[in-house]
């Protein structure tokens, strides 16, 4: 009996019991769909996070304040202290101290509400310096960015992100005014969209000159403290040199001892990325584990149905044996049927998974990335599940004595 013959016979057997085959396939289908969606969701989340981190700029280092220790000895979280100042930023900007640092952008930020006669909009208001644009690798779509004069004059000007501008104004935003904490600010420019996927926060922000922000909007503990200092290294190769220069300069500035340790921390994009990646990977593994369990249940379903099929077709098996089918062919027949259930379930599950991934990406705005490798892998797994589930029922069928099989009613 040829393989083509076996396939044809298997297909006929499955078609004869359409409902039963369909329900069995459903078990595999759901498992495969779940696997594709969860893996896709994990990969999508990873892509979103890495594109956000990459959108921060290129060859970037971020200096954040260390944790504060309260009166009772309670340690606050990273960034709770306000140990970084504009003076630190000035130090790092000096080519003599840190020759490998190309640009420095200290920032302070807070969520505040901007008001126009027509609308109000709550967004992150960030105080920073003109170098922010270069450090964060952004471009302007309209007007100009903050300039050194704005800083020295503590000018009441602002640059809006494209989303923010669109929310506050119909039409041109440049030249119009917004009110922030009772202060009138003139919009001097609008940023171009960062173009990062899911990076809405990158496009929804308002930038003001650092001194303006420190004095009028943010100023809490000390008017010169900053929340973060963004550093851009001269090149990819200079990144670790820049890191060490910044570390050394700040340690000297802050007179840190080896006992107290540094009161700041420096993160590279890479370290941010690896942290975020490990988090999303853990999540992906967890979700995929759940999906794998549903696939296992699907596999048990296939085995169950194949066993039922063997019992139900015991006379047919007996007849085929009487007519000259050797045990090997009978085993192959049932293995092929089980594999077909797996294959059909895998293909349908992959199709459904890809469809749902596309649909959910559109409706949720959360990208679900279904990679060809994962999809192909899922189909292969489905077939393997079918084969593994088929072994026991097929062996039972092959071992049936023809007379016992023929005798049963």
């Amino acid at each position, binding site marked *: *009996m040829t393989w083509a013959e076996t396939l044809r016979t298997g297909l*006929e057997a499955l078609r004869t019991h359409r409902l039963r085959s369909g329900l069995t396939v459903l078990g595999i289908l759901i498992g495969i769909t779940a696997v594709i969606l969860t893996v896709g969701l994990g990969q999508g989340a990873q892509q979103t996070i890495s594109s956000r981190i990459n959108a921060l700029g290129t060859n970037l280092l971020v200096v954040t304040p260390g944790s504060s220790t309260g009166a009772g000895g309670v340690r606050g979280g990273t960034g709770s202290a306000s140990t970084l100042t504009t003076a630190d930023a000035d130090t790092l900007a000096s080519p003599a101290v840190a020759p490998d640092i190309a640009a420095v952008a200290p920032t302070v930020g807070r969520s505040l509400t901007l008001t126009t006669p027509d609308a109000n909009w709550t967004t992150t208001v960030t105080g920073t310096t003109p170098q922010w644009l270069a450090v964060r690798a952004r471009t302007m779509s309209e007007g100009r960015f903050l300039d050194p004069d704005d800083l020295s004059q503590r000018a009441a000007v602002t640059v809006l992100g494209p989303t923010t501008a669109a929310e506050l104004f119909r039409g041109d935003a440049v030249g119009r005014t917004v009110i922030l904490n009772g202060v009138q600010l003139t919009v001097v420019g609008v940023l171009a969209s960062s173009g990062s996927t899911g990076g809405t926060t990158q496009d929804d922000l308002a930038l003001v000159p650092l001194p303006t922000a420190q004095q009028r909007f943010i100023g809490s503990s000390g008017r010169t403290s900053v929340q973060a200092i963004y550093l851009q290294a001269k090149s990819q190769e200079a990144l670790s040199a820049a890191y060490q220069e910044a570390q050394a300069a700040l340690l000297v500035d802050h007179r840190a001892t080896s006992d107290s340790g540094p009161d700041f921390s420096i993160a590279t994009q890479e370290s941010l990325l690896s942290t975020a990646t490990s988090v999303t990977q853990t999540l992906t593994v967890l979700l995929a584990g759940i999906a794998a369990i549903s696939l296992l249940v699907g596999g048990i379903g296939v085995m169950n149905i194949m066993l039922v099929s063997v019992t139900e077709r015991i006379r*047919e098996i007996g*007849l085929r044996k*009487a007519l*000259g089918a050797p045990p*090997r062919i009978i085993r192959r027949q049932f293995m092929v049927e089980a594999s077909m259930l797996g294959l059909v379930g895998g293909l349908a599950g992959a199709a459904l998974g890809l469809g749902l991934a596309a649909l959910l990406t559109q409706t949720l705005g959360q990208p679900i990335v279904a990679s060809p490798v994962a999809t192909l892998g899922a189909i292969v797994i489905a077939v393997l599940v079918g084969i593994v589930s088929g072994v026991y029922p097929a062996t039972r069928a092959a071992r049936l004595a023809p007379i016992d099989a023929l005798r049963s009613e």
Partner: protein
Amino acid sequence: MSLWSTPRPGTPAWADEPAVPAAVATVPVISLDRVGKVYRSGPVEVRAVDDVTLAIDEGEYVAITGPSGSGKSTLMHVLGCLDVATSGVYRLAGQDVGEMSEEDLAAVRNQRVGFVFQQFNLLPSLPAWRNVELPLVYAGVGRSERRQRAIMALERVGLGARVDHRPGELSGGQQQRVAVARALVTDPSLLLADEPTGNLDSAATDDVLHLFDELHAAGRTIVVITHEPDVAARSGRVVRVRDGRIVADSAVEAAS
């Protein structure tokens, strides 16, 4: 009676058994030499076939009869290579099947034996010709030749116009004729029928028996297991079995 038997060189050692004196110079289709089949269920030992010696020649039409529990079904299973004897030697068309593997037995059943069952045992989802071609599938015959031979076999049993009908669309007698066509399609040495008329009314019974008569007249070797005297009377030789032993073996006087 052995009109269709062909003399073969070399007289086998068992040919001098007295069962069928006419077959001395030929290889019998069936040759049982002190064959026994013992079932063991726990401490109880059941001798379903007890020391049976029997030879059936090519072209013979033999009925094996006996009350239920006489061992005739077990004998039929042994004859059809569906089951293996626990003692003695069984040669089917000269081939000793006692030491064969499952795989080889399957091949012997496929090529040497054509089965006809009481329950017809047709696959309900397949049309008549697909049922008939089934043994050829396992014999490795190509598709177009299979269809051709299946249709020829169906024509032979008078169902040339029903090749595409499913078993459910055929009467009991017609279904049994499909089963006979399936049994004949590989051109086996032996046509083995187990209560072939047990599920048929008298008209269909007559129909099938008439077909057997024709096949017998054409030289087929037929063994029918039956407990119906009418059916046995249509054969050329009746072997009576009781308690696993042959109690009578006689030619039928006036076959139809």
